[in-house]
Structure formats: structure tokens, C-alpha cells
């Protein structure tokens, strides 16, 4: 019996020894022994990782797909549903075509859902930063304060992008949801969202420097806070949101704008724009010595600029050239400026093409135009660098021209309007070459835009001379002839309505392709005007060396009430049953 126990114990001992083979370390058997990977604790316990985390949020700065990211390349951009340009892509799976048809199918909903989810993901990332950069963070107190202010700006910016799209949206505050915790929330009213963003911006602006140098250049400045505030308050005062929401149900009306109109909102917008001007650190990039309007051209080609307030910072690139140049310049020709945009540019003397004495010649329509036109649109005969011949050469868009000639609206092989875009491009850079430009792209806020905010608010508050002053500044920089009266083609004493149209037209051409037009048309509540309108192009026929010009129709536009606000993604509604859907979806 003794032997039995002895052997039993021996047998069990063997088992235990084998069994504990894996447990001999301090960790249990299954634990990972070596870890180079990251988690929340590791990231926020390390100052370099913490800054990398912040950097990634900058990297996510969003711009509504408007300049041709890869998503746009096959699917169109918001710009193409306005009167700014025509879409390249025919067919019902292209988002702009879905809008024109009023069909709004899966590609449209998918894009909406992607935007909605992207913005809330960024807001979550901001909140994680705010929570984790606490007393235990290794950052210096000064850096903590500054970076948290940057983060709070970025969070406010993403909220504003949500508001542009949907109106009032749920404000999650500093909450960081877990996947298992309930995340049901209702929409906050438009007024609450505006107040929240403005109070955040007011709070963080003083904590941020006016300028950065060296490696920090491009971070959020005090000016960026003030510029965003100017934009938010411009929206808040604009017709759609200032009591003009098409929703009739009180609950929805309050979510999609202020329930009633209030003129004083324009005063706030005026003050916010004036504050940016008063900051005194920005100026219009001006150079009319090299050639008229050269400052307007070079503004988009600079890495360090006194006009740009905030941009998405990139390394040297040729993104805009590759996306939009015509085939002969190695580009993907993703959008075609409309005749409507071309016609909106005044003449070199500042007079609109319809004005008597403007000098506009329908048989030579591109002659003597506002210099900004030449930096915005490639027209028939416009000169642009060609890589293969290594020199400036004309681009031919007349009907039948090889490569870049006019194509039917149903094709996707070239322009359907007779125009290509060249806004923000470096004319030495083509889509097919290796040359790039070290620039900021895209620009999110620039001083020129602030002056237009100021001009618009000035018109609405009745200060017409102040408004005209801003337009003159922009036109002077644009290289327009001052004229004998030094008014750059502007009338001496316009009515409020005339001034309003002048400001809106100036905004259209000055900020063309800068992701503004769709949002401007929305806030101006211009749907009634645009809905059903036919867009135009220019069919140019070549006979010998002569060209003849004929306007042609392209596509109808759609801008019914439902387009003022995007639909809340159905998947989100299914979970958050308390969310109220926008009108017409």
C-alpha cells in the first residue's frame, strides 16, 4: 500500500510538472511575453506617441470629397451638383447623376453614411485625447494646454461639418462610448449646436498662438478659431438657417435652423469676420507686377502663406493637377466648368459681360476677362504646360479636337462643356510628369474668404460701402483694371439687392472649386432658383483658323427641399430610434 501511494504521488508529480511547464513564468501560460504593440495606456504615457495621436487627427481633416480624392474619382463630388461644373461620369451609379435624377440610391446613401461615421469617429478620437491627456500625461503643462485647445478646435470643426450636412446633430460632449454601452442620443437643436461650437471656439482661441514656426507650422492658430467662428455665424445668419428651414413641424424646424428670423444674427456674423481682419496677421497675396492676378495664382502654390488661415497640410504633390487636367496633360479631367461659371467672371475692366460697354465679344469670348478666369478655367486655346514637348502649348477643346475635344454628356472621355478646370494648379506641373508643388492643399480657410464673409454680412446689415470695400480689395488683388473711378468696375452706389448679387457673384468666382458653392447655395436657400435649371457648355467649331461659338445644354440640376439637409443614415436611425429624420427622406 505504501508503494502504491508512493507511485501515485510520483505519477501525479510528473503531471503537475508537465502541467506547470507553461506556468513557470510570472505571467500565466497564455500571456503574451513580448509586446511592442500599442494601446491606450502606452500611447498616452509617452509624449511622442501622444503627439503622433494628435497628428493622426490632423491627418483626418476632411473636406467633403470636393477636390477629387480617390472616392471622388469614380463617383463625383458635391461641386458637380451645383452650377459650378459638370460631372465626368454618366450613369445612375454616379452620385451627382443620382441627385439630378432625384433617385438617391445606394451610392448616395453609402457616401452619406461614410461621412456621418467619419465625423463621429474623429470626434471620438478628440474625446479620447482630452480624457487621456490629464495630470499623468508626460507632456509639459504648456503643451497640454495648447494641444487640448487644438483638439477642441478640431472637434468643433467636425461638428460644423456635420451641421453643414445635416443641421442640428447629437452633441456627445466629452463622452467616450464603449461598444457595449448604450449610445442612444437625440439630435440637439441648431441653436444649441451653434452655441456649443461658438463657446468652444471662444474658449480655446486665447490659448492658441497667432503664428507657429518651424515644425509646428500648420497647426490650429487663434486665427483658425476665429475664421471658423466667422463661418459658423455666417451660416447661422443665412436665410436657410435664420428662420428659413423648409420644415414645418416645430420639432424638425428647431433642429434644422432657428425657428424664427432674427436680423441681429448678421451683426454677430459681421463682428466675427471683422475680428479676423482686426487680428491683423493676414493679408491678401498680391502680385500684379509679374502679370495681372499672379498673386491669386500663387496663393495656392505656397507652403507658407499670409493669406491661408488653415489648410490640410500635405507634402509636395500634384493631386489637383492629376485629378483635373485634361487628357493631353496627363490628368483625369474629373470635372468640367460650366458656361454659367465662365459667364460669371467679369471683364478685365470689372464689368459683367452683360453690362453695356463691357467690351465682351461673343465671337471671341475669352478675351480681356478677369485675370482670375485664366487661373480657374482651361478654355479652347488656353495655354498650359505640356510635358512631352516641355513647353506651354494651347489646349484645344473645340468639337473634334483630338484628345481634349468636346464630348457628349453621356461619354466620360473628355469635357462635355468645352472647359477644364485649372483652379489651384501649378502650370508647370502636369498629371503625367514627376513634378510636384510643395503647397497646402486643400485650403480650408483663407483671408479672401473672410473678406467675402465680411462683405456679405455688411450687405445684410445695410453697410453697403463696407461690402464694396471688400470686393474692391479682392478685385485689386485679382489684377482687374481699377478704372477711372478706381472702383474696379463696381457701381458707385448699388442698392442692397444689387450689392447682394455682386457679393454672391464675387464669392462664386473668387472661391470657385474651393468647396464653397454647394454650401453657399444651401444657406442662401437657392434651391428654387437652381432646381430644374439647365446647365450649359460651349460648342466650338473650327473652320480653317476660325472658331465659331454655340452654347449647348448639358444637364438639368436638382435642388428640391430635401437636398438642403442630408438624410441621417438609415442604419443610424435603426439604432437611435429617437433621431428625427430630415425633411423629404
Amino acid at each position, binding site marked *: 500500500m505504501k508503494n502504491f501511494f508512493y507511485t501515485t504521488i510520483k505519477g501525479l508529480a510528473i503531471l503537475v510538472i*508537465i502541467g506547470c511547464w507553461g506556468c513557470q513564468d510570472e505571467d500565466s501560460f*497564455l500571456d*503574451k511575453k513580448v509586446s511592442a504593440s500599442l494601446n491606450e495606456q502606452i500611447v498616452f504615457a509617452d509624449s511622442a506617441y501622444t503627439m503622433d495621436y494628435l497628428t493622426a487627427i490632423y491627418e483626418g481633416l476632411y473636406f467633403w470629397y470636393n477636390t477629387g480624392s480617390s472616392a471622388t474619382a469614380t463617383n463625383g463630388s458635391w461641386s458637380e451638383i451645383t452650377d459650378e461644373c459638370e460631372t465626368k461620369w454618366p450613369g*445612375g451609379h454616379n452620385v451627382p447623376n443620382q441627385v439630378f435624377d432625384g*433617385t438617391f*440610391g445606394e451610392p448616395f446613401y453609402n457616401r452619406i453614411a461614410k461621412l456621418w461615421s467619419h465625423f463621429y469617429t474623429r470626434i*471620438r478620437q478628440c474625446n479620447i485625447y482630452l480624457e487621456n491627456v490629464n495630470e499623468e500625461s508626460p507632456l509639459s503643462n504648456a503643451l497640454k494646454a495648447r494641444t487640448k485647445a487644438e483638439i477642441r478646435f478640431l472637434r468643433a470643426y467636425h461638428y460644423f461639418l456635420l451641421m453643414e450636412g445635416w443641421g442640428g446633430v447629437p452633441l456627445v460632449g466629452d463622452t*467616450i462610448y464603449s461598444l457595449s454601452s448604450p449610445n442612444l442620443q437625440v439630435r440637439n437643436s441648431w441653436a444649441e449646436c451653434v452655441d456649443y461650437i461658438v463657446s468652444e471656439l471662444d474658449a480655446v482661441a486665447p490659448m492658441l498662438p497667432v503664428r507657429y514656426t518651424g515644425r509646428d507650422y500648420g497647426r490650429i492658430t487663434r486665427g483658425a478659431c476665429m475664421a471658423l467662428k466667422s463661418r459658423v455665424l455666417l451660416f447661422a445668419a443665412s436665410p436657410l438657417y435664420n428662420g428659413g428651414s423648409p420644415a414645418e413641424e416645430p420639432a424638425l424646424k428647431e433642429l434644422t435652423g432657428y425657428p424664427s428670423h432674427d436680423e441681429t444674427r448678421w451683426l454677430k456674423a459681421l463682428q466675427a469676420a471683422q475680428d479676423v481682419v482686426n487680428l491683423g496677421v493676414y493679408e491678401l497675396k498680391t502680385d500684379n507686377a509679374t502679370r495681372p492676378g499672379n498673386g491669386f495664382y500663387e496663393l495656392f502654390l505656397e507652403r507658407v502663406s499670409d493669406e491661408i488661415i488653415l489648410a490640410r*497640410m500635405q507634402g509636395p504633390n500634384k493631386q489637383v493637377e492629376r485629378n483635373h487636367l485634361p487628357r493631353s496633360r496627363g490628368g483625369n479631367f474629373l470635372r468640367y466648368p460650366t458656361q454659367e461659371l465662365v459667364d460669371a467672371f467679369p471683364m478685365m475692366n470689372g464689368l459683367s459681360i452683360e453690362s453695356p460697354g463691357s467690351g465682351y465679344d461673343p465671337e471671341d469670348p475669352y478675351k480681356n476677362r478677369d485675370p482670375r478666369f485664366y487661373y480657374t478655367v482651361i478654355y479652347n486655346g488656353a495655354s498650359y504646360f505640356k510635358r512631352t514637348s516641355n513647353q506651354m502649348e494651347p489646349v484645344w477643346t473645340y468639337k473634334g479636337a483630338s484628345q481634349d475635344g468636346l464630348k457628349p454628356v453621356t461619354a466620360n472621355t473628355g469635357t462635355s462643356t468645352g472647359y477644364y478646370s485649372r483652379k489651384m494648379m501649378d502650370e508647370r506641373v502636369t498629371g503625367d510628369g514627376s513634378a510636384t508643388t510643395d503647397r497646402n492643399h486643400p485650403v480650408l480657410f483663407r483671408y479672401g474668404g473672410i473678406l467675402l464673409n465680411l462683405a456679405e454680412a455688411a450687405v445684410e446689415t445695410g453697410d453697403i460701402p463696407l461690402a464694396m470695400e471688400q470686393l474692391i480689395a479682392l478685385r485689386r488683388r485679382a489684377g482687374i483694371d481699377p478704372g477711372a473711378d478706381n472702383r474696379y468696375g463696381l457701381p458707385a452706389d448699388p442698392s442692397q439687392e444689387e450689392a447682394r448679387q455682386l457679393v454672391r457673384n464675387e464669392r462664386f468666382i473668387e472661391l470657385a472649386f474651393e468647396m464653397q458653392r454647394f454650401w453657399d447655395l444651401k444657406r442662401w436657400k437657392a434651391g428654387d432658383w437652381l432646381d430644374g435649371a439647365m446647365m450649359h457648355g460651349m460648342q466650338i467649331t473650327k473652320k480653317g483658323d476660325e472658331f465659331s461659338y454655340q452654347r449647348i445644354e448639358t444637364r438639368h440640376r436638382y435642388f428640391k427641399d430635401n437636398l438642403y439637409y442630408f438624410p441621417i443614415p438609415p442604419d443610424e436611425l435603426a439604432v437611435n430610434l429617437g433621431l428625427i429624420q430630415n425633411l423629404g427622406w
Partner: protein
Amino acid sequence: MKEKIDPLKRKRSAGFSILAALLLIGSGGRAQQLANQAAPENMSTADDSLRSGLLLQNYSDLYPVLNGVRTGDNLIESTGFLDGRKLRSTPATFINTGFTGRLAGLYTHQSSGQPGSDGVSLSLRGLSPLIIVDNIPRTLPPWSINPEQIESVTILKDALSTALLGIRGMRGAILITTRKGERHPGFNMDITAQAGLSQPVELPNPLSAYDYARLYNEALLNDGQSPIYSQADLNAYRNNSSPYTHPNIDWYQRILDDQTPFNRYTLNAEGTGKSVHYFVSLDYMNQEGLFRESTENAYSTNSEYQRYIFRSNVNVDLTPRLSMSANLFGRIRDANEPGGGAANIFNALMVTPGNAYPIFNPDSSLGGNINYKNNIYGQSIRSGYTNNVYSDGYVDLGLRREMDDLLPGWWVRGTVSYILTLNQSINRTKNFETFQMLTDPATGDRSYRRFGTKSEQNNSSTVSARRHQVYAEAATGYTRHLGMDKLDVLLLYNIDYNTLNDNLAEKYETLGATVQYSIKERYLLQAATSYSGNSSYAPGQGYGVFPSAGLAWNMHNEPFFESGFINALKLRASYGLTGNAVAGYFEYIERYAGSAGYYLGTSAASQPGIIEYQGRNITTWEKAQKLNFGMDLRFAGSKGALTIDYYRNKMSDLVQPRGSSAALSGYGFNVIQNLGENLYSGLEITAGWAERKGDFAYAVSGNLTVSDSEVLFNDEPSYPYEWMQRTGQPVGQYFGYVSDGYVTQAGGGPVVEGYQAVPGDLRYKDLNDDGVINQFDQQPIGNQRPLLFYGVDLGFSWRNFNLSLMIQGVSNRDILLSGSSEWEFQNNGKGQAWQHHLERWTPETASKALYPRLSVGTNVNNHVRSDFWLRPASYLRLKNAEISYTFDDIALGKLKVGGLRIFLNGLNLLTVSDFSQSDPEVLPGAYPLQRVFNGGLTIKL
């Protein structure tokens, strides 16, 4: 106690050996372990055959289960058995091809016929089973081995049978037991040589160049564009009058051979001595591929598969109580393929029209043009070759001590295994150039435009995967008879380290126990539990307990049971909780990861970014509650047998993307999470009958499986329409539009929103009547009935002749057609068109058209998922047949051999299907399914 059934009278007749193989039905027995098997495996006795063929033929026979064997009477688990000898008549490189139709509950699907990749995918009660060889879950690919080394295959279906697998038991398991040479006294050796031919069962039917061009013109006209082929072009295609400018090439015929040889040689030796038993197997196999070769190469450009296998299983009794086993396995698989890649070439064969380019230009250069730069002949002959060598092997060492000197019935065992895999790829590819011939219309001068650049042959090698696995296990067991009762206890502990390339090892750890108590051989109770963990989960969250229990009633052992027509009846039930570890490689800890950088600074310098990683959030293992009821029956003097199993497996925490998610949380929409709940249920029936009358014997066995599933929960949004709901539908149900004939006038409909219809386009049902066809009009399409599959095994033997037939089929199966093999002129108009496009819609054939109007490129209305493209694809196949003749002891000159068997067998011989366009399993574009004819002889020395 009731009388044991008399063992069948033993009569040595090698002629029945094939019957043996025939009779080994699905859930059936594996009797030869206890039988006196003097003959080598290939020539087992008729008695064995009959006994092994019938379910529960002898309740004292031993059946391998996980970590041991059980007698039939003691079997409570739901299992299925297949005798290894059944696999030998299947001439395929992957032995699991032989499982098809032979095991109830195990669904197989073959998707390629390529040598070295011609195995089937397996689905056991809806999930892909874990593969276990000699009780160890192995990471090395198990199926490419010679069938002679397989003693038996056991499938473990219910929770009780997989309880000791712990956290990886949920998917069920296939347990392979290799031959050990037990009960074969002396030295036994046999040699088999076989050779065969394989040929594609079916190749796609492309259009001739003339029909292609004609239809292309028609498609362009349909799309509102001008035709590109003139009447002169069409005539040239029809008359083959200008083969260089107007080629008409049947690519399949030009690039592929009609058939290809296959041969295999194997030597097996086994025996049992005084204190040793062993099994040794050597095998060589060579399977050529279908690609034609050229004498211009000094090397092979075919897809060729050669395999060398060595196995040695030795068991030595070191002392009367201590025995040691050493199992060695080594394998080299040497797979050659053309430099263009076999899969690429098959794709090119599918997508290249017959008029794309001439293979050769008049100056003998390879043809090509801007749209088709990769001449297929160039890809197969002038691209060199790639050679993949997969070397793997393992060593299992085991020690077992009977502890009956201390406590009768007690034993202890330790096992260690080391498994190594090394995959090496040798790149000897090269690039070729193609030329387009251009003829000056004025002068008739020819010039050539070149595409691509010729290159020297590469010569590099890479190690594509290194994997090693260490497995160690300690086990102890105790068996005690208490009068008429019996107690069986097993306790084990194992650890398993799996290391892939430079990763840290993934580890499993399991502590498990099984207790079985049998009362008077009538009532059986069994409980099994494991405590098991996986290292991919967060610390403290990787371990779970997986309990299960079962009971059975051997009614035939009751005193009241009278053996009449029914000879034996057992009822059994089991229930348990199982788990499936699915976490990714240390994902729990890698919640943050590097992301795209950002260019801050006055001079551009990228600064790195770090973001929260959100794609997956797997916190626990998948779970299943498995319930199983079974019945085993023998009747008519044990000539007939029947087994029925019913199961109901409720799964939860299945890893899926969320059907809905509040993006407000900042987690986006489609996070992979533990959330799905599915229900799988089914019925499995196996029946067999075997009888011998004088010199004639026959056996019939069949199995039928009905397999159903239902999505219980997938967290999907509450869709506005009931028909959009996935919940309640079978798992993997197709959803799409419902086609409703053809559009009859331009601009007609309803069609996909935004699409301008022309006559002959598909029209869809507007389910919600809102005037547009969009995602709200997609509903379940095709079959919603449970999958049904079955197999029938027939065997006949007369004197020394044997014939076996294996027929297998699947019902309630659909296939969804899409892509270049179904749709015309895909790939922006560069793609191929097929015979079935001749049945297209045209104004004249509008009433009987079988295909919508043709278009060039992808048509956003017609080429979307709808029931139009869903075809029933039930089929019935004569999967396998063998005829053989056996000579008893004969003398070859002075050499006297123990026996000689001559056989002919075949695979995929005949298929009947309601899907006529191609083979119902292997679709066009893949390496085609092979029909194999094979013959050989076995000599017993």
C-alpha cells in the same frame, strides 16, 4: 444477458476484399481491429468485409474516438466512421476527395481540379471541422497523403465527442488514425503500382470569332454606339481567310491538352512481433497538369505535382508495462507551374476572345495588341516556371505505462510532438514581348509594334511560410469493473504552441476529463468537461469551461429484449457547450496602431500618426450549445443496419460585422464583433445491407443528410420592409432583385434607378411600389429549403471479381452566376462571350429569349444580383467506381507471391445535373474538374 451474435464464418477468400471496402458505410463499423487479420490490408478477408461493413456489427469492436477507443456498445457520442480502405479506390491527390458521399453530416464541395489543389472543402454540420491526426490537432495540411496509411477516419459531431478539445471543439472534428501494424503477425508487405489519365470533365464553350464579332456589333448597337466590325471583317472571321489579322482561336484547345497522366507507387510494410508492432509506408506520386508544353524549353512549364511520402509508426514494449511509440512522418510536395501562373492562365483562357490576337505573327513573333498584351501562349510557354516546394513532417513520441501493479486498470501516458512546415518558392519566371502586326494600306508593307519587354529568367527563392508546432500531453486513465457495472475515467492535460513565421506562438492549453459509467451494459452515463484557453484573448479572458454530458440505453441488453427481426437497438442523447477560438493575432492588445502621417511644418516633413484601431472587437470565443439524439439499429440477422441522428446546434457570439451600429459612438458602422446567433439543425440517416450467397455477395449502403440553418440574430437594422430582413432566413441566403421579364420599349421599366432602359433589358419587380428599383426591392432569392445531400455505395462480388460504385448527390443547391464566365464582353468590352449568349434577347426572339439583350462592359441594370442569375444546381454524380480481380497465392516464375490484385477505377465518371452550363461544382474560370481513369496492380510479398 443476451447471446452475442455469432461471428460470421471465416472463409479465406481474397476475392471479397473489395467487398470489404464497399461495405464500410458511414457511421458503420471498423471491425478489423479485433478480427484476425492475417491478410494484409488490401486483401482482408470476406468476413472482415461483411463485418466491417455493417453498423454495430459487433458491439465489442473498438472504434477510435478522441484519446482512445470505445466499443460500439459504449459509444454515446455522435460519430461517423470510415474505413481507410474505402479511400484507396479514389484516384486523387487529396484523400478527402474520397469522403464525398460517404459520411452523413459531412458536406463536401470541390472548387478546383488542379493537381495538388484538388481537395474538397469540408463542412460538418455547417462548420469547417478541426483536423486531428493520431489525437493531435496538426497545423500541417492533412489531406495530401497516400490513403494506404489511413487506418480509419472518425468524424466527431456532437458536443460530447469533442469535449476534450475545449476551446476549439465547436466546429466538430475529423480524427484520422494511421495504421500501426497491430494484429498483423510476422512481416507483411505489399507493393502497388498504378497509372491513370485525367481529363477535364467539361470546358467552357466560347463563341467562335465570327459569332463573337457579330454579337459584339449587336451589343454596341444596343448601347447606342456604332458597330466596329465591318461585313468584310465578319466574312474574314467566318472563312478564316486572314488568320493573322482576323484570328479565330479556340484558346482552350490550343493551350491545354485533352488529358494528362497520373501515376503512383506505394510500398507498405507492417507487422507485429513479440514486443513490437510497426507500419512503414513509402509513396511516390506524379500528376501532370493540363498545359501543353514546348520543346523550346529545357524545363517543364506544365503544372506538375510530385509527392514523396515517408511514414514509420513503431511501437515497442520496453518492459511488460512500459511501452514507447515513435511516429515519424515526412513529406515533400513539389509543385511546378508555368511562369504565368496556372490560375492566371485559366483566367486568361476565360476572358480572351478568339479574335483577340493571333498566337503567332507571320514573322513567328507572339501576337498581341494594346488591349491584350499578355499572349496566353507566352504566359504558358515563354514565362519560365515557378516551383513551390512544401516540406513538412513530424515526430510523435509517446510513453505509456500500465500502472496495474499499483491499481488494476490504471495507466499513465505522456506524448510530445514536434511538427514542422517549410514552404519554399523558387521563381524562375521571365517576361516576354508581344507584337502587333501593322500593314500599311497603301504599300502593303508590314511593321510591328512591340508590347512588353523581354527579360532574363529570374532565379530567386523565397521562404513563403515557416510554421512549427509543439504539442505536449499528459494523460491518465482508469478502468474498473464493478460487478456488471463499469467505470471509465480519463484525465488529460495538453499544451499546444503554434508558431507561424516570425509571429509569437499562439497557444492553447486544455485540462480535460471524461467519466463514463455503464450499468449492466444497458445504461450508459458519460460526462466530459474541459477547462481550456487560447492566448489570443486578453489576459484573464482566454479560458472557458466546456461541459457536456450524454446517456445511452442499450435496449438489446435488457432481459426483456427478444432478438427477432430487430437484433439490436440503442438510443442515445448528448448535450454540451462548445467553443471556437477566433480572435486574431493578439488583437486584444493592439488597439492602437500607426496610421498615415501628416505634413506639418514650414518645410514638408511627414510626422507619424497613431490611431485607435477599430476594425475588430473580438472579446470572446464563439459558442454553441449542441443537442444530439441518435438511434442505432441492427436487423435481419444483422444483415441490415440503420443509424439516425438529429441535431440542434444553437450558436452565439459568432464573429460578424454589426448589422447596425450607432456611428455616434465613433466606432463607425461595420465593426467585427461577437454578436451573431445562428441555429443549425439537421437529420442524418445512414443505412446499410450486406449479404452473401455462395460465391456471390453484395452490399448496399446509403446516407442522407438534411441540413438546415437559420439566422437568429445579427443585429441588423429594422428595415422598412419585412423582405429585407436577414434574420429568420437560412445562413448565407442570397438576396437580390426579382427579375420580371424583359423591358419591351425604350425607357421602360421598372429597372435599376437612374438607368435608361432599352428593349431587352431585365425588368425587376418593384416590391414596395415606390416607382424605383433600389435596395428596398431586394429580397431572398433562390432556394430557402434546407440543403440535402446523399451518397449511395454499391458493391458486388462474385468469386474473385469485385465491382464497386459510389454515387453521390446534392439537392436544394443554387449557384449565383456572375463575372466573365457568365456575362458578355466584360472588362470594358475586352472580355469573352459564350455559347449561351446565342440565346440572347433580340427583337425577333423576344418571346423565347433566355438571356437579356447584349451590352458591352458591365451593365448596371442587367449585371447585378438578381434571381435571374441564380440557377438551381442540384446534381447526382457517379463519383467513384472500381472493378478488380484478385488471384490467390500464385507463383510468378520461381517467385511465389502471396497474392495479386488487378484493379481499374475512376473518379467523376458521370454527372447528371439540372445546371447544364458547366460542371455544377467547379465553375468556369477555375482549373476544371478532372475525370480520372486509373488502373494498377497490387502484389503481396
